[in-house]
């Protein structure tokens, strides 16, 4: 996919470019609003990641210009403004998503994938990672043909991990997406639920799918590892 990053902070722009390129995207960077608007309108992108606070033409003006000419181009806003009114203004102006600084790159990457998926394919009712299968409509999970009974929260956690298979997920991302709560770094609920899932999904199978990523969080491995 081809992604445009419009960000005036050189260090941050460079980290975003490096991270997104490592995920096999082609990434262009614009350092101000005028350049960003010109590139977004002139080049065929799959996603625009747009900082709101830009020198010259601000991010909101760029967003409005893009929305007038490219209705379906996904735009993710980055901003240090966290007020509800700012968020509402961005979404009303046509932003598809909104990420507040200081964000995690892993969060940005996950949201970028969701936007790209939304614009390219219908929502999947069946998820599959190796021999693990989930039917989201019937709310059934089985591994290698063996049914797995999950509680509502366990199901939601596994669904989130399967949707992001092969990607690292922080505890904050998990608690915000699965529990819909603001992350509290002192709670260990994520670790506890990961253990519940491990017992049901990995125990008794030769290949483990759920892995701890030290210092980061967890990952459902798409390629697996021998237990």
């Amino acid at each position, binding site marked *: 996919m081809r992604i445009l990053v419009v960000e005036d902070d050189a260090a941050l722009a460079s980290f975003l470019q490096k*991270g997104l390129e490592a995920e096999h995207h082609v990434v262009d960077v614009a350092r101000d609003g005028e350049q960003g608007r010109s590139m977004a309108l002139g080049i065929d992108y799959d996603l625009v990641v747009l900082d709101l606070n830009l020198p010259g033409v601000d991010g909101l003006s760029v967003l409005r210009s893009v929305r007038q000419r490219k209705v379906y181009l996904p735009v993710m806003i980055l901003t240090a403004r966290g007020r509800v009114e700012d968020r509402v203004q961005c979404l009303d102006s046509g932003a598809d998503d909104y990420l507040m600084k*200081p964000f*995690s790159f892993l969060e940005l990457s996950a949201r970028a994938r969701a936007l790209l998926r939304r614009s390219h394919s219908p929502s999947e009712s069946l998820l599959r990672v190796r021999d693990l299968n989930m039917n989201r409509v019937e709310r059934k999970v089985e591994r290698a043909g063996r049914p797995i009974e999950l509680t509502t929260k366990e199901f939601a956690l596994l669904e989130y991990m399967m949707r992001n298979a092969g990607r690292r997920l922080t505890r904050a991302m998990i608690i915000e997406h699965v529990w819909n709560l603001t992350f509290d770094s*002192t*709670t260990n609920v994520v670790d506890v*639920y990961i253990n519940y899932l491990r017992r049901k999904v990995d125990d008794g199978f030769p290949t483990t799918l759920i892995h701890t990523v030290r*210092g980061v969080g967890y990952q459902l491995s798409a390629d697996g590892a021998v237990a």
Partner: protein
Amino acid sequence: MSASVHSYPRPERDQELLGDLLHSLSQPLTSLRCNLELSIDEVTEQQQQSVSAALQQTETVIGMIQLMREYLDVEPGEVEHAAALTPVLRSLGENLSSIAAVRSIRLRVLGTSAAKVRVTESRLRLALQYLMLALIDRQPAGSEITLLLTEGAAGTVLRAQCDRSFLDPESRSAEKGRDRPAQRDSVRATMRRVRLAIASRTLNAAGAALSLDDGAPGFVLRIPHMD
């Protein structure tokens, strides 16, 4: 960002200055966090421990900045929204009961009310989340927390009752069953106090009256009828 701070009265000026400071801090912190996240796979195993520790410290700082931002964002008397109390409380109760269950604590939400609170739904949710998490955090394993909604002539009362006394910090650490540095417990206690202050400020700004008796297990929230 403020163009001219001198045109505001002092409290608002201080708030604006602090807001600008937090806004400025978020940019380098985003770069730092993204850099550490992307570096973790590029360094040796020995260096990974250092990067991982630096990432955790960075996330603690970011968590504190987020709390300061939430505290500053409460603006009395300017909110035109009104959020229904019962659905927010019930939805939170469902999400938080799975967190409480990890420590064998039973969380119940009883009663119903048509009360609305003069605050956005997301802010009401955040305030109640902080109040309820503080209770869960300080209750001993095996205890029970009841949130009871009652309606009276003057308005609605939400009473949180616990069947045991709060844990002291030493018992809490012992219950955790792992070595927890004193500094971490201190950070945890500070963050809990700030969260309670945010909850109190948010609810008081919305016209409700929150009684928090420090040391006593529970709280009382009184919500007058809206005009």
